[in-house]
């Protein structure tokens, strides 16, 4: 044996990770809408397990101290929490930039005024379609579109900056030009054209959601053209559709590198889909300080940096650009969270991924499996 004297005191000499910039606070999973691509997990947290106000306030204080600059108050529908304004005021006090991510259904003008007075910095409002017909169908909520329009106008009347978020898929991808027009008409400064990402609910509904390759490439051209035409007037951010891509998306800009996500029940995740990876040990803010979780939770260190990468990624010149792509997608498609993301053309499963997309895209009209609390089987 080749025995080399090594000091035993430093089994893992890992440099401390830089502080996170952003925190997604999923205040609740309750939501009046039932979008079939919802980023919440399939097993939704119920109201009874949600963190209380005081715990959230502590988490926001700890986040600010840790170096978080922006907090995204999300859900579910965050306005379902009656203590939202209290949380916003606290975030402002500790110096956090607050972004409200809302579906805009059931939010009265009085509530919006209170949210504005509390000091919200920015509002992101979802539109499931550019027309009432599509929004109401995709969200499974009759009248949702009209309510969203009213909320958007109220947000602008209050002088708050507005982002329109539209998740695109087979039923609405043709509406991208209309989404952009809608954003302009509503006075939004920014629009997100986010292609549905296939984890959790969206993976369940992939057969109903997947667009064709031609649709996706047309969409990319439309966005490119609009971006150039509307420079200085409307910022257009796009989340790319990676099933048809050559390179994987740099998911979260690297696992445990820039941001973290707190679930309604207090679990802290490196990304909102991370619970789809079995065997990861997620720590909870009820038991650990946020900084301790960021630095030491096994789930955060599992895929941090480049050490965990398979040789295919480790030897790639893009390893610190793509950060290995998406771990949840590797899990979903390759059955191994540490595999090369199949969205990468170097992955042995790349052709398989493309075949899955093409088969789903050719599926015609498929009924949605709408997002909902999965009712336990009482038939016994």
């Amino acid at each position: 044996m080749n025995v080399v004297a090594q000091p035993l005191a430093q089994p893992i000499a890992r440099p401390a990770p830089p502080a996170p910039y952003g925190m997604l606070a999923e205040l609740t999973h309750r939501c009046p809408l039932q979008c079939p691509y919802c980023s919440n997990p399939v097993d939704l947290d119920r109201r009874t397990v949600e963190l209380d106000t005081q715990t959230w306030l502590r988490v926001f204080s700890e986040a600010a101290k840790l170096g978080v600059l922006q907090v995204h108050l999300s859900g579910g529908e965050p306005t379902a929490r009656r203590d939202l304004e209290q949380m916003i005021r606290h975030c402002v006090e500790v110096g956090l930039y607050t972004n409200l991510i809302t579906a805009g259904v059931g939010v009265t003008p009085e509530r919006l005024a209170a949210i504005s007075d509390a000091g919200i910095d920015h509002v992101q409002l979802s539109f499931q379609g550019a027309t009432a017909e599509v929004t109401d169908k995709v969200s499974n909520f009759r009248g949702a579109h009209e309510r969203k329009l009213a909320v958007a106008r109220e947000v602008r009347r209050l002088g708050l900056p507005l982002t329109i978020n539209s998740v695109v898929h087979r039923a609405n991808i043709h509406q991208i030009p209309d989404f952009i027009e809608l954003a302009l008409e509503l006075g939004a400064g920014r629009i997100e054209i986010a292609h549905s990402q296939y984890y959790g609910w969206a993976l369940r509904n992939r057969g109903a959601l997947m667009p064709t390759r031609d649709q996706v490439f047309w969409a990319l051209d439309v966005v490119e053209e609009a971006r150039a035409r509307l420079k200085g007037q409307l910022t257009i951010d796009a989340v790319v559709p990676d099933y048809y891509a050559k390179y994987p998306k740099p998911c979260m800009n690297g696992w445990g590198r820039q941001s973290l996500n707190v679930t309604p029940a207090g679990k802290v995740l490196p990304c909102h889909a991370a619970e789809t990876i079995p065997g990861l040990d997620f720590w909870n803010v009820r038991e650990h300080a946020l900084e301790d979780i960021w630095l030491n939770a096994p789930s955060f260190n599992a895929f941090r940096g480049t050490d965990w990468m398979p040789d295919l990624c480790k030897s790639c010149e893009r390893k610190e650009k793509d950060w290995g792509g998406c771990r949840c997608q590797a899990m979903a498609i390759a059955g191994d969270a540490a595999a090369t993301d199949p969205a990468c053309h170097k992955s042995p499963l790349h052709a398989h991924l493309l075949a899955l997309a093409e088969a789903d895209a050719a599926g015609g009209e498929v009924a949605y499996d709408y997002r909902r609390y999965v009712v336990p089987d009482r038939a016994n």
Partner: protein
Amino acid sequence: MTALVTSAVPRLARGVRLRHDEARGQWVLLAPERVLNPDPVAVEILKKVDGVRSIEIIVDELASAFTVERARIATDVDAFLAGLKEKGIVTLAAVTVGDAAS
């Protein structure tokens, strides 16, 4: 290039905040879904963008605080603010006499 009207009063748009980032020891400009890192010169200008001072007052104050030719500062401030205005980070208000103090 069209210069900005120097009597105009710049203000950070709603949804934009300048703050010191203690954790990283730097100034940051926070905007919707964006964190910008202004350089030291930009920080000095931004600290004076308060919705009260006009562009000419900002230039005067910078010229007396730093030993740099006023004309050069005026050019830099104009270019910097024009760029932020295009990005929607700064808004400009034309003021009539008496408004500036409110």
